[in-house]
């Protein structure tokens, strides 16, 4: 029979808290930059020049058809041989941004494509510039339509950041691993890590669902 002993694990709370902090920080940075990248790529795939469409399409397919951990290892272990040496945190954020950017691109593109032709023609008849049409008429309702899917993708990227511990980033899962190997209380460590991820994911979803309609696009 397994006996639980959470106290030795919880005694390491500063490490857990630091791990939670880094996971949250990595997620915040990559959600923001990744969504921006995704929006830019979605625009490029619809309105860019032929070459740009090809380049962005290639990037999206490359990222969506390779595992995240390989992308991370490529950036952290592979790039130094090309003379690009990034710190652990920068490598993590870069990998997460590139990953989210590709998925967000396709999600946002779907939203943009769903804009009815009539709305765009109406905007054109008001003599709005192409940029005004994109940023004022097409993008906000598109984001409103795909917001739940984008939020889900951001949560997936947050959970995927657990892999960053593999390149020694001291995020939540690495903290749990470290505590487990120091206290030999692996089951307890992972139960606590699971609950922390669950809480973080629920909170993140709530936050984005609350913030989206108020700040990103104005729901009518």
């Amino acid at each position: 029979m397994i006996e639980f002993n959470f106290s030795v694990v919880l005694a390491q709370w500063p490490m857990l808290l630091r791990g939670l902090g880094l996971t949250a920080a990595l997620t915040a940075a990559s959600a923001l930059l990744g969504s921006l990248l995704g929006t830019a790529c979605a625009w490029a795939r619809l309105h860019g020049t032929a070459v740009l469409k090809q380049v962005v399409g290639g990037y999206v397919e490359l990222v969506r058809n390779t595992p995240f951990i390989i992308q991370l290892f490529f950036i952290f272990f592979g790039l130094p041989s090309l003379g690009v040496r990034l710190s652990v945190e920068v490598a993590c954020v870069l990998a997460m941004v590139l990953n989210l950017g590709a998925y967000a691109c396709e999600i946002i593109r779907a939203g943009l494509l769903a804009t009815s032709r009539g709305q765009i023609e109406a905007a054109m008849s008001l003599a709005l510039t192409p940029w005004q049409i994109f940023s004022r008429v097409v993008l906000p309702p598109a984001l409103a339509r795909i917001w739940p899917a984008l939020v889900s993708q951001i949560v997936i990227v947050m959970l995927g950041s657990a892999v960053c511990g593999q390149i020694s980033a001291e995020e939540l899962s690495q903290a749990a691993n470290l505590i487990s190997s120091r206290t030999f209380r692996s089951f307890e460590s992972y139960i606590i890590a699971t609950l922390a991820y669950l809480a973080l994911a629920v909170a993140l979803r709530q936050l984005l669902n609350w913030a989206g309609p108020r700040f990103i696009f104005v729901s009518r």
Partner: protein
Amino acid sequence: MKSKALSTLAGLFAGVLLLCTSPAQADDSLTAVLAKKSIALGVASDFPPYGYMGPDFKLTGVDVATAQLIADKLGVKAEFVPVSTPNRIPYLQTKKIDLIVSALGKNAEREKVIDFTVAYAPFFQAVFGPKALSIKSFADLAGKTIAVTRGTIQDDVLQQMAPPTLKTMRFEDDATTVAAFISQQTQLLATGAAVAAAAIQKNPQVQAEYKLLLKDSPNFIGVRKGETALLNRVNEILRAAKADGTLEAYSQKWLGRGTGVLPD
């Protein structure tokens, strides 16, 4: 016919015993293994020359040979379970394996949760780094970055001995730890001598060499706490193998040097 029925009954009995075993109850560890006619041995599969995949895709190395020897002497089938450095003790505790034979060192924390047999092979851990870097003592580690595998003895020793300004980067297995050092994401590498030797030999461009001894720690076999019967039998086997030169031969074959004085 009668004996078959009896042995089935014995097997069932042992199975039932296994199910309700708790540390407080009688120690049936050895009889359970003998009744099962196989022993689950946790060995490394990526840790030459101790436990690794040979060119014929069969596990080989000092640990694997020693584990096989134990199974043979017990007269049971050896069932090899590949384990990693961080998961081997949890595997033993959760009864996925019966013995850890994977270059396991002994320390006070581990002795609290598992038991150890006598030593069966030599091993030492050290800090390795490029020739250009001068590291003579732990104080010289200040301000450097070092790659280490999480949960290893090297990790513990660095934690205790190195100045706090040493940036320790922890990876999940030796392959990743070595990759971090070879790709120059860290200045130094803390690992076992055998791993470092292979890594340095394959990557001459990093100009790495031995810098600082972390711990001279021979390998022991890990046994679940309280399984004294199994522990004593394995000790008998190891002592006999030490006396008749088998362990010395394994050491010569895979490590290229003798066992030296192994603690009993």
